C-alpha cells in the first residue's frame, strides 16, 4: 500500500539546519517542507524588499538550499517552503543560481505568488473586513498578504516542480498539498482535508513535535525528560491514502516523540479544537486519536473537516511606532532599595512625556509574572532595573536608553552594566477578503 513520507525541515525562519540535512539523508523522504514564515516575518521581509528589489525572501534560504539541495536532487525529494516570504520570484531565482552553481541540472523551481494584496486593499478596489477593531490607516501599512491554500502548490506539483517557494500560504497547506497530489484526494473531501491538516499542523513547528519546547528536567518518572536535546531531530510523517499517519524521527537523532509531545503540539496555538480555520477546510481536531505504536513512533488518526470558509484571512503589517528599552543592575546589601530608587527616578523623568506606554520591571524579583504569581520570592542579592517605553518617534524611544544610562552618574550608588536598544514596531492587523479577489500565480524556472 502506497505511503508518502514528508519531513519537517524547519519550524521557523531562524531554525537549525542540521536536522533538515539529517532528514534528507536518512529519512527516506518523498517531500521536505520548510515552514519559515511567522506572522510578522513577511512584513520585515517586505521592508528588506523596499530597500533592495532582489531581497525580501528568507535570510537563511541560501544556506538551507546549499545544505539540502544536492541531497534532495539526488534522492528525488521535492522541497516545499514558504521561504519566498515577500519575494518568491527572487527566492526562486536565487535557488536557480545555487542549483546551477552546484551543478544540479534539470531542476524545476516554482515561485508561488499572488498573496500580496496591498495595492487592491489600499486603493479600495477590494474591501477588507477587519477581524478586530478598525484597521490602521493605509499610509502606515507595510504589507498585506492573504493566506493562500493548496491550489497554487498543487499546480506547481502537477507541473513537475522539484522545489516550490511560496509567500504567505496557510502553514498546513505546505504539507496538505503534497498529500492531495500523491493520493489524488478530492479537495472537497472535507474529512481528508481535515486529517491532512492535522498532519500538517503537527509537523509545521518541526522540533516542537519531537521534544523541543517540552523538557522539564527532574520530573517524576522522567516523564518530561528529553534525551539528546542538544541534537534534537525533526519529525517526519508516513501518511497512508486514508490520511492516517505514523509520526517518527530518524534513528539516532535526539529528542522524544510520544503521546504527550503530540498532544501538546496538536493544541498548539489552537482556539476551538473543533473549528480550526484554514483556506482549505474548517478542520475539526476534537476527535483526533493519538496512539503510541513504537519507540518514538505515534499513529495519528481521526481528523475531520467541514466546508472551506468563503473568505481568506489577510495579515496586514503596519508601522506602529518605536520601542526603547534600557537596563541597569544593582547588587549587594540594600540592592532592592537602590533599584527601586532608580526605578522611581526613571518614572519621574520619563513620565508625562511623549510615551504611549511605559513599563518598569525589577528583574530577579517579579519581572515575568508580576507580584501576584511571584509572591513568595525572597529579596535577592541583585536586581536589574528595566525600563521600556513605546512612542511615536524614534527620538522619544531613544530617551529611555539615555535616561537609564544617565543613572550611572545621576542615580543611586553602585549602578552597573547599563545597556539599551531601540526598535521599530511592526504590528499585525487581521482582516478577511472575499476568496475570488485573490489570484494565486505560479511561475517555473529550470536549471
Amino acid at each position: 500500500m502506497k505511503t508518502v513520507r514528508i519531513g519537517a525541515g524547519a519550524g521557523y525562519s531562524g531554525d537549525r539546519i542540521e536536522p533538515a540535512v539529517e532528514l534528507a539523508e536518512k529519512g527516506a523522504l518523498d517531500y521536505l517542507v520548510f515552514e519559515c514564515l511567522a506572522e510578522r516575518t513577511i512584513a520585515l521581509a517586505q521592508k528588506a524588499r523596499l530597500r533592495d528589489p532582489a531581497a525580501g525572501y528568507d535570510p537563511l534560504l541560501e544556506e538551507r538550499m546549499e545544505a539540502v539541495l544536492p541531497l534532495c536532487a539526488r534522492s528525488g525529494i521535492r522541497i516545499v517552503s514558504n521561504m519566498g516570504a515577500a519575494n518568491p520570484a527572487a527566492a526562486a531565482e536565487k535557488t536557480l543560481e545555487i542549483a546551477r552553481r552546484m551543478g544540479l541540472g534539470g531542476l524545476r523551481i516554482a515561485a508561488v505568488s499572488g498573496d500580496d494584496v496591498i495595492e487592491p486593499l489600499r486603493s479600495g478596489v477590494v474591501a477588507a473586513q477587519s477581524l478586530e477593531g478598525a484597521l490602521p490607516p493605509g499610509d502606515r501599512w507595510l504589507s498585506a498578504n492573504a493566506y493562500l491554500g493548496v491550489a497554487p502548490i498543487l499546480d506547481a506539483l502537477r507541473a513537475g516542480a522539484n522545489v516550490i517557494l511560496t509567500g504567505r500560504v496557510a502553514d498546513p497547506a505546505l504539507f496538505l498539498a503534497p498529500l492531495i497530489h500523491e493520493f489524488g484526494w478530492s479537495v472537497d473531501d472535507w474529512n481528508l482535508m481535515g486529517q491532512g491538516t492535522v498532519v500538517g499542523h503537527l509537523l509545521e513547528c518541526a522540533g516542537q513535535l519531537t521534544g523541543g519546547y517540552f523538557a522539564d528536567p527532574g520530573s517524576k518518572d522522567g516523564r518530561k525528560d528529553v534525551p539528546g536535546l542538544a541534537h534534537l531531530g525533526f519529525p517526519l510523517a508516513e501518511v497512508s491514502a486514508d490520511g492516517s499517519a505514523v509520526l517518527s524521527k530518524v534513528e539516532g537523532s535526539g529528542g522524544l516523540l510520544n503521546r504527550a509531545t503530540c498532544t501538546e503540539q496538536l493544541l498548539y496555538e489552537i482556539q476551538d479544537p473543533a473549528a480550526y480555520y484554514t483556506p482549505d477546510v474548517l478542520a475539526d481536531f476534537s476527535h483526533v486519536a493519538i496512539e503510541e505504536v513504537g519507540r518514538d513512533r505515534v499513529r495519528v488518526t481521526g481528523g475531520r473537516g467541514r466546508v472551506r470558509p468563503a473568505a481568506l484571512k489577510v495579515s496586514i503589517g503596519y508601522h506602529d511606532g518605536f520601542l526603547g528599552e534600557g537596563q541597569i543592575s544593582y547588587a549587594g546589601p540594600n540592592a532592592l532599595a537602590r533599584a527601586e530608587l532608580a526605578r522611581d527616578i526613571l518614572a519621574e523623568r520619563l513620565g508625562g512625556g511623549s510615551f504611549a506606554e511605559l513599563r518598569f520591571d525589577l528583574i530577579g524579583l517579579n519581572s515575568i509574572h508580576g507580584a501576584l504569581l511571584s509572591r513568595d520570592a525572597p529579596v535577592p542579592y541583585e536586581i536589574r532595573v528595566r525600563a521600556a517605553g513605546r512612542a511615536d518617534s524614534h527620538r522619544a524611544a531613544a530617551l529611555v536608553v539615555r535616561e537609564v544610562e544617565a543613572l550611572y552618574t545621576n542615580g543611586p550608588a553602585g549602578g552597573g552594566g547599563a545597556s539599551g536598544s531601540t526598535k521599530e514596531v511592526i504590528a499585525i492587523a487581521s482582516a478577511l477578503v472575499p476568496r475570488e479577489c485573490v489570484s494565486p500565480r505560479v511561475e517555473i524556472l529550470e536549471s
Partner: protein
Amino acid sequence: MLLHDIAHARTGDKGNLVTISLIAYRVEDFTLLERQVTAERVAAHFRELIEGPVERYALPHLGALNFVLRRPVANTVTRSLLLDAHGKCLGSALLAMEVETEG
C-alpha cells in the same frame, strides 16, 4: 498539590490571544482537571495579566483542556513592553496553580 505534579502545558500566541493546553499525564486525572481548573479559576489566576473571560475547551479522550486567554491590546506580541512579549511563559505559571487530591 500543584498542577505541575499531574499535568503538563504548552503555550501558544495568536495576536492578542494566548492559548494554553493543559494535559493530564494520566488520563484518569482528567476529571480532576475538568472539575477544578475552570475557566473562571484560570481567569482569576491570571487576573493581573489578561482581560475578559477565559474560554475553555475539553478533549476528554486526550486528557486535555485548552484555554484561550485575551491579553490587553497594549500587550499584543508586537507592542508589548513585557520581557516575555509572546506570553510564552504563561503555561508554566498555570502549572503553579494549587489543586486538591480527589478520592
